[in-house]
Structures are given as structure tokens and as C-alpha cells.
């Protein structure tokens, strides 16, 4: 069962493989760790088991004690005995939670593997509770491992927000929507660049507060800031919004391509675009130069984790001169990543899915200079003499845009520098 499937139809100029077997990835619940910091008046209530609570606590580490806005309603034996009781129990837990937290304006009921398997209908529960707890909005999405992989939890969350977004009048002027949770500092940088290009009406999904979510309509053009937002994109299309195809804003080249897509859609002159982006491009170039020496020619292997792998590999190969051994991704959205696939070096081996032990065998055989992988694999591979970059940091660090291009390169260069520094 761990054998790769027969070679599928070629996808661009890359060497695409699909693999099935054991997957060492997070489930979508992990997205809560950054989403709850982004939407400041939202609360995330996981309906799941002790395992779910344990996962979030292990992933969130110290944040749990910084007044977190997430919790787990742990299903116990009595809940399993009867679904009707489980609904009552859920209502009881939520009602008390909201009583205690009057600052909460938006509550997400987050489905997990156990709640999905026992078919606890959280969407009905969300409707029921929305009525009862108004003005608090109650939405639901699934972050279960059986349905979502790591960053897909953010996709499911944002997709749940879309039907609820205010309606933009069809006569309204076209607006630009940036989709995907970004660090506040990155959002502000992009806003300044768009303003310099003459685009004033730029909105973000998710907004920083529940009451400030952007309106959507036929005039909405949206740019994906993250590659893992398939369902959110579909939901936006249903609301009449249209996607601007673009590479993702990682590295100078990606950022320029991404901004360019907006500039073209909104008729920004070449001059204005040049003026708005030139300083950023120049600074990114300055910041990237020292890293080229360290990363140029280095052979890099990506294990699947977040769907950021393809854009990151493109950045490493094209802007830093790294060589790509294998680019693993949990899921490859052909349409959203079309521009990225175009930019990857021809013949790059891309693996969609995973068979963990087989992939580790390939990695060991290739002995790459740098392996990008999760925390479950990083120390074991280091102990085998392979340098690793643990991949979660790429989600927990501001990496998008011109000003972060150097930081992004530094994330990859640091393990190599450290290895060179240590004498014992």
C-alpha cells in the first residue's frame, strides 16, 4: 500500500508524484494557534477528545497561559451514549462560556475527528446557538485530521466566514481583497504599497475584529496571500468575487508577481507600479545578497507540511540558487499554484501526499544539505547528520513581502550557519 501510484498526467514542467501511506502531519486544529491571535474577539471551541486538547496545548506551548481564546469541550462517555444529550451538553458548555467571556463576539465551534465520526452536527448547533446567543455569532468548521491537514484548518475557518460576510452592492467600485491570515506588520506594509500604487480600497480576510469583516460582491477581486485556501476561494467565487492569478508573496520575485497581478487588474500604470515597488525590491535585494553565498548550490529536501512548500522551493531555487531534491506537499492545488509551478525549475520532483518511511528512505539516500520537515522528524534527522529547518516556524514568523525576504532566507540559512559554528 505504500507504493507510489502510477505516474499521473504531467503538471507543468515538474516531475509530479503522488504517494499514499503514513502521513506525519498536523491536523487542522493547529490553525487555531495563530487564528486566535489574528481575530482578536473570536473564540475557538474545539469539540473533541482529550487528544485534541493535548494537541493544542502541545502546539501552543506557553501561549495557553496568555489568556487564550480557545478551549476544548471534551466529549466523554455520557456524550457518546446519546447524541441528543451531546447537543444539550454542548449548549450548556457554550452558554456558560459566553456568559464568562462577554468580550467574545464570534465563536467558532471547531469539529474534530471524534465529533465528525459520531456525526455531531455542529452546523446545526452553530445555527441554534447563534439565535440564542445573539449578538454573538456562532460559526462552525472542521479542523479534524480526517478532513484537514495543518494549514487547511485556516482554509476551513475562513471559508466558514465567507457566507457571513456583508454583501457589497453590485454597483460598487471594484475592490481588492487579500485573503489569508498575515502578520499585522505585513498587512500594514502591503497597505502602504497598494496606497502608493493608488489602490485605496484594500481589505483583508480575516479582519482583525469580527465586526470589521470585509464586504464581498461581484466587484471584488481577490488575491490569495496563502497557497492553502482552496475552499475559501470557492466560497468567495460563489459570492461573485474573482481571483487574480498570481504567485505567492514569498521572496522579492513572488511579491512583485503578486503585486503585479493586482496592479494589472486595477489598471495601475507601469510607472506607478515601478515607483511603488522599487524601494522594496531594492531593499529585498540587499537583504538577500549575503544569504546567496550560504544557500547557493545547497541541496534542499522538503517534507510535506503546510502547502507552502512549492512557493518556498521556488524562492530558494530562483532567488538563492538552491538545488531542489524533492518538494513534498500535503496537497497540490493545480490552479492556485499554476504560476508557482511555472516558475519552479523544470523537472523538479514534487510529491503530493506522503508515505513517511519511504520518503525518509529517499531523504537518507539523497543526503540533502538542508531538510525542511516537522518537529517529529527534525531531531531524528539531525541525529543522522542531516541539517534540518523545522517547518512550523515558516508559519509562525512573518515571511511575506519585500521587507521579510531577508528574514525568510535567514530562516533557511540559520541551521547551516549554526552547524558551521559548533565545534563540538
Amino acid at each position, binding site marked *: 500500500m505504500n507504493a507510489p501510484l502510477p505516474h499521473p498526467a504531467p503538471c507543468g514542467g515538474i516531475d509530479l508524484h503522488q504517494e499514499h501511506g*503514513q502521513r506525519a502531519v498536523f491536523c487542522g486544529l493547529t490553525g487555531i494557534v495563530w487564528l486566535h491571535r489574528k481575530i482578536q474577539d473570536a473564540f475557538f471551541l474545539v469539540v473533541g477528545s482529550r487528544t485534541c486538547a493535548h494537541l493544542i496545548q502541545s502546539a501552543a506551548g506557553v501561549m495557553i497561559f496568555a489568556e487564550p481564546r480557545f478551549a476544548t469541550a471534551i466529549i*466523554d462517555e455520557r456524550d457518546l451514549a446519546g447524541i441528543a444529550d451531546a447537543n444539550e451538553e454542548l449548549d450548556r458548555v457554550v452558554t456558560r462560556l459566553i456568559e464568562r467571556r462577554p468580550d467574545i463576539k464570534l465563536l467558532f465551534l471547531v469539529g474534530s475527528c471524534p465529533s465528525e465520526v459520531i456525526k455531531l452536527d455542529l452546523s446545526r448547533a452553530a445555527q441554534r446557538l447563534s439565535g440564542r446567543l445573539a449578538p454573538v455569532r456562532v460559526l462552525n468548521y472542521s479542523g479534524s485530521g480526517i478532513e484537514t491537514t495543518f494549514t487547511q484548518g485556516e482554509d476551513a475557518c475562513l471559508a466558514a466566514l465567507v457566507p457571513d460576510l456583508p454583501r457589497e452592492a453590485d454597483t460598487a467600485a471594484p475592490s481588492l481583497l487579500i485573503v489569508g491570515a498575515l502578520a499585522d506588520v505585513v498587512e500594514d506594509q502591503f497597505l502602504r504599497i497598494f496606497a502608493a500604487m493608488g489602490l485605496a480600497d484594500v481589505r483583508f480576510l480575516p479582519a482583525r475584529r469580527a465586526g470589521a469583516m470585509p464586504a464581498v460582491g461581484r466587484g471584488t477581486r481577490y488575491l490569495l496571500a496563502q497557497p492553502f485556501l482552496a475552499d475559501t476561494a470557492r466560497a468567495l467565487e460563489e459570492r461573485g468575487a474573482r481571483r487574480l492569478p498570481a504567485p505567492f508573496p514569498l521572496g522579492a520575485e513572488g511579491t512583485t508577481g503578486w503585486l503585479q497581478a493586482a496592479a494589472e487588474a486595477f489598471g495601475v500604470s507601469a510607472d506607478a507600479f515601478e515607483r511603488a515597488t522599487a524601494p522594496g525590491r531594492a531593499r529585498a535585494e540587499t537583504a538577500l545578497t549575503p544569504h546567496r553565498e550560504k544557500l547557493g548550490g545547497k541541496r534542499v529536501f522538503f517534507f510535506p507540511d503546510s502547502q507552502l512548500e512549492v512557493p518556498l522551493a521556488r524562492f530558494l531555487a530562483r532567488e538563492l540558487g538552491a538545488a531542489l531534491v524533492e518538494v513534498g506537499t500535503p496537497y497540490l492545488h493545480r490552479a492556485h499554484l499554476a504560476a508557482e509551478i511555472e516558475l519552479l525549475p523544470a523537472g523538479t520532483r514534487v510529491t503530493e501526499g506522503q508515505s513517511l518511511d519511504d520518503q525518509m528512505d529517499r531523504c537518507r539516500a539523497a543526503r540533502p544539505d538542508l531538510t525542511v520537515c516537522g518537529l517529529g522528524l527534525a531531531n531524528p534527522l539531525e541525529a543522522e547528520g542531516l541539517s534540518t529547518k523545522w517547518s512550523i516556524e515558516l508559519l509562525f514568523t512573518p515571511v511575506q513581502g519585500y521587507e521579510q525576504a531577508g528574514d525568510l532566507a535567514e530562516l533557511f540559512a540559520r541551521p547551516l550557519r549554526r552547524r558551521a559554528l559548533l565545534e563540538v
Partner: protein
Amino acid sequence: MQLTLWTYEGPPHIGAMRVATAMTGLHYVLHAPQGDTYADLLFTMIERRDARPPVTYTTFRAQDLGRDTAELFKTSVAAAYARFQPQAMIVGASCTAELIQDDPAGLAKALDLPIPVIPLELPAYQKKENWGASETFYRLVRALAGPAAPRPAREPGLRPLCNILGPTALGFRHRDDLIEIRRLLDALGIAVNVVAPLGASPADLGRLRDADFNVVLYPETARSAAEYLKKSFGQPFTQAVPIGVGGTRRFVEEVAALAGIDPAPVLDGPGSRLPWYSRSVDSTYLTAKRVFVFGDATHALGLARVAARELGFVVVGLGTYSREFAREVRAEAAEHGIEALITDDYLDVEAAIRAAAPELVLGTQMERHVAKRLGIPCAVISAPVHVQDFPARYAPQMGFEGANVLFDTLVHPLMMGLEEHLLGMFREDPEFHDGVGPSHLGGAPVAAPMPDRAAPPASAPIRVEAAIAVPAAPWAPEAEKELKKIPFFVRGRARSNTETFARERQLPLITLETLYDAKAHYGR
């Protein structure tokens, strides 16, 4: 449903992983959805293990549910056997797989592998991590220790032989406790047969019966197995937990009695530095420091005794999240004249710490955060712990060296005696105030003074059962001002004592006089 922010223990399959990861030559196939592999990083990151845990997950997904997850489980077991060639395997389900009701035991049996395959029943919706570890170890011992038989009489002249039971992966200081206990046994002239689960192979479990008796280091994980070995092979096992000087001495006496040898060589030996350090006048100021102890049962019990009898503290709170050992903890609490706190809700623990107003908290990672929030010194004495409590240096909790470590650990967070005196004398000193921690801990001054009152923060943590307290009388301004002159590390207690005093007497206002009346009433 139970609303949970933080859990002291993971689900039971994490306990099974702790046993599997501790051992060699054993492989665990866990029927679990994609995502449950997060547990690997507890071992690779917190304990910094240099290899993946020996666990294969089926990582089924939604599309597999429509098909045959049972088949997926079977192929995973077969593939894991082919790749890792273990001496034995354990198979089981995580919480989600428990719901889909594939039968790991039957499915694994159908494969008819040429090694023992031991199925685990770990009820994820009732039990927790430590129970899972205990049950897994018990099942392994039951399956692999061989058929029950009475022990033949020992041949004279042979060294007594024991097993050491209990240390696991991800155990708090298990690595160094084991070194320390081995050293003690060696000094007594007792040989060690098998240590399990840590470092043992399935074949080693087959040799458990050769020992004369068992040393149980951590009852949470090893008592069930030890009871089974006692029943099957007549091996007695130790009850004393060798934490602290007293605990270690009792342990040595017990072990020597079981081995039929003289404990004197160890008891009369150099022992620990703790007794002299604790008697030296430098430690006088430690007398009757109020300490709150919370953790797993083994460490909570051990530390309560060390704190009270070996450092001269007063134990004002004692509790555990190990419900399985509630009886023992209640009995120990009664000896300190208090009621034990048996809970797995950290908010209950926080409330109890607040109410007890201790000067030192000994607890887990959670109590460390609670103590930080309340501005109380704290030391970590029990799992769950973060990466910093899997230290590179030798740091046992058990045995005589463990007692040395404990002395340092418990005294380190406290302000030193002279600092305390100066604080009492110069209350408004700009360098010694609430915002400054003990000087040797190098805390940067805090800009805003810490609220010394249990004021709920703006966005209070979720507290489902909010305690309804009888409101205390208001404080007169000059009394409030005077209260601020009391050193902050005893101020919380002064405040609560005064408020209790006022409440009991139904005083309408707390004045300067009330403050000093209460001080005289409660004394120190």
C-alpha cells in the same frame, strides 16, 4: 462534556507511547487519524530523543472511512513488521479509532505474525495518560513474563537480584533517578536483573521472573505490573518512594529487608548534604515558609514530606491530578492538617493557591505559570513539564543526590534571608519592591506594580463554576497604605488573614487597627 483549556495528562495512548518509546525491539501500531502523529514531537522535542518513537500510525482520513479502515490497519501492521522486525508488537486504537470500532486485536491476530502481538484496550473517553502507561506495561508483562510459577528458594551465596520497574520515556527525571537508584542498590550489594520499561526489550521482560523482588520507582506506571509479578512469581515489591533523605533511608531499609541484607553500609555512608545544609543557620529563615505542593501522586507525596520534615516548611496545600492515588494523597494531607486537592482542572488549583497564599509553590509546568501570574516563587517537581526540565546535567529527584538537587531547587526561587530583612526594614526602597524578584534570579524591574489582589484580569480565564465568595469589608485608605508597607511576599497572606478576621467579626470597615489586630491574632 468538560470544558478544558489545559490538561495535566494526555489521552491513554500517549501513555502507551511512553512505554513503547522507552523500550527497544518493540513496535506500536496505532490506529489513529491523520494528525495524531503530533505526539511524536513530545518525544523528539521535549525529551530531545534522537530517533522517531517506534510507532506506526494508520493516519486514516475521511476518504478512508468510506472504504475499509480495517484493511488499512492490517496493511499497516504488516508493513511495520516487515520494516522494523520487532521482537514484539503492541496494537491499539486512539480515541477516534475507538469510535469506528475496527478490532485491532482480531485484525492483528488474523495476520498471524511470528512474534507476540499484544492488543491494548485503552478507553480514551474514561482514562488518561498515566493509566495508559500503567495498563500497557502491565499487558506487556502479562504477555511476556511467562507462565506463573512459584519461585525456587534462593541459593545461598548469590547476590540478591531485583528488577527496577517504572521509568518510561517522557518521565520527569526518570533517566537520572535510575542512575541514582542503581548506585544505591550497587552500594548495598544488590544486582539489577531488568530495568523496565526504560531500556528493556520484550526478551528482557521474559527474564523478569529471575529476580528476587521488584523495586517500584513510579507507582503510577509500575504498580499494576508489580502486583501481577507478585501474584505470579511471588516477587514482593517496594512501597517506599526514595524521594528526600527520609524517603531514601526508608527505601534503603525496605530494600535491604527484602534482600535479607544489612542496610548499614549505605545508611552510615556519606548520604546527602541536605541535612547539614538545612541545619546550617543560613537556612533558619526557611522555617515555616508556607508551601503549596501539587503534581503527580509520587512527587506530591515525596515533596510534601521533604518540605515539611527536611526543610522545615509548612505545607499549606497538597494535591494531585492522579485520581488513582487520591487515597494516599488524602492521608498525607491529613498529616499536615489540611485537605487534599484532587483535581485535573488547573483553574481549581489556581483558586486553591490563591486561597492558601503560599510563599512557595512546588508543582508542574502549569503551577509555574500560575505562580508567575500571582507573583509567587515556584519550583517544578512533577510532570507535565517543558523542555527545560529535561536537563542536560545530572539532576535526579531520588536518592541522596536527588535530595541535594531538591534542596537547591526548593531554596533557589526564594529570596535570601538578608534580602528579606532589608525588605522588612526599608519598605519603600526603590531597588527592593514588588516589581523586583530575588536578586540572584536577575529579574528585570517590572514597570507597573503587580496587582497584589486577586483581581480578575480584563478577559478572565473561563471559570465555569465561579466561586461565590462572601465579599470582604472595604479597606480604609490608611489601612490599605499600611498593607503596602508589608513585604510583598507575605502581603497576600496578610490581606487574606485580615479580611477573614474582619469577616468573622462582621466588621464594616478594615482599619489600621483591624490590620494589626489580625496580625496579633494570627501571629507568625
